[in-house]
């Protein structure tokens, strides 16, 4: 897999909530590193990234009738852009 392909498969979706104001939150693949996320965002959206923080969100336990299950864990990446920059695709 080329670096380019890796960048596109790594970012799953943008997570927009009240807490995401001023920072971009992405759902990324679980094995993505901070450096990889930074490179992917810079490449795809053509912006400068200041910092990336990541965490693994634990999947919720779901009980459906007698069955007890668990949703998959997922990785969340907080991406802060360099001052004054924004990603046009998510702002309009």
């Amino acid at each position: 897999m080329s670096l380019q392909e890796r960048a596109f498969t790594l970012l799953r979706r943008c997570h927009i909530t009240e807490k995401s104001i001023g920072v971009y939150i992405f759902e990324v693949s679980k094995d993505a590193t901070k450096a990889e996320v930074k490179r992917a965002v810079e490449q795809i959206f053509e912006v400068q990234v200041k910092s990336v923080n990541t965490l693994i969100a634990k999947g919720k336990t779901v009980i459906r009738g007698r069955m007890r299950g668990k949703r998959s864990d997922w990785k969340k990446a907080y991406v802060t852009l360099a001052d004054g920059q924004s990603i046009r695709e998510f702002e309009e």
Partner: protein
Amino acid sequence: MSVLLETLSGLKRKLQITVPAEEVSKSYQQRLQKEGANAKIKGFRPGKVPLNVVERYYGKHIRAQLIEGLIDESFRKAVEKEDLRLAGQPNLETLPEWEKGSDLAFSIEFEVYPVVGKVKTDGVQASEYEVTVNDSDLDGMLSDLKKQHIEWSAIERAAQAGDKVIIDFTGSINDVPFDGGSAEDFTVVIGDKRMIPGFEDGLLGIEAGISRELKLMFPDEYHAKDLAGQAVEFQVTAKGIEEPVEPALDDEFAKKVGFDTVDQLKEKASENMQNEAMARLNDKHKQAFLDQLLDKHDFDLPEVLLDGELDYLRALSKQQGVEAGEPEGEAEGESEADKQEMMVQARKRVKLGVLLSEIVRQYDIKLDQSAVQKKVFELVRHYPNPNELIEWLYKDKARLAEIETSVLEDQAVEALLKDMDKETVVMDYAKVADFVQEEAES
């Protein structure tokens, strides 16, 4: 907002309206905020959604609403500013495109009411009527009334024309009795022409207890097909003769028809006759008066109104055709002459409508609700359950509008007539019917 008014042709107008970008944006932001205050979007508490997010979710919808609302509003303002009186529905050519930051520009076509000017009544002939009811007219009326209250009294003599004869009869064709050809205690009034030809005449001179044999023919166009044109023999036995007795014109008779004395009856009857004659004359006069007014004025008529009226007339004639039992397909192929006739009708009705609204405006006439009520009551008076009918009439907007228009017409004519010199025409009651007829034909 900039407005450009263009006259296309006749009464057709075109408005070109441009709403500046600034105004549109302001309105757009307001709408976004309003929408955002109630929007429920995942990840945000209600009312805490940033505008850009609201826009991403609802932008398209809001823009469509915004354009529609702005067109409505600016068009209304433009119409007010230019002092236009719209006829029919305005027509928006194409829905305008709008992008953020650009002006909103569009053009609307429509028709306006013609300028009628001051309503002219000079030279229009107006009349006032007085009806005189003669004794002979009254007598005629009373004798009609008496005929409706005839009583029969048994008498012992030979039957005359006009008498009622009670009979048993058996009818047979070739000596075989046929179905429905016999009856007992049957009453026949000689001269009513309810029986087959010759039957009633054959009873002349008969007396109670006497039997007769009548040899007759069923007419060729008799309703029962198997009897039509057949020779028939009736064995008739008279059981009694009754002669008609007209009630005498006295207080007793007056009481029977709902009055205390004969004088009161006469007074009421002549009053009724006068009212009825006056109503008919006034109706005719109103028509003639309006016709004259129409001839006095000349102005263009809005096409939309004409088309609407034509559609209405067509629907009406179709409905009448169906009610008259014509097959529905037949109404489709209307002839050229019919079309012409309808066009003339429609022109007249639209012209009258425009003229009336002008009169109403110039004389500042308000619809008299009590007159409407009176008219409704008059309409339903003769029906068995008037209250239901009234309710129905008030529910049916089109019907009510018809009545209201007619009342408004009356009021308009009245207002015009007030300032006019009138010729007073005195007329005998007997002549009224002829006069009304004649007017209608000419």
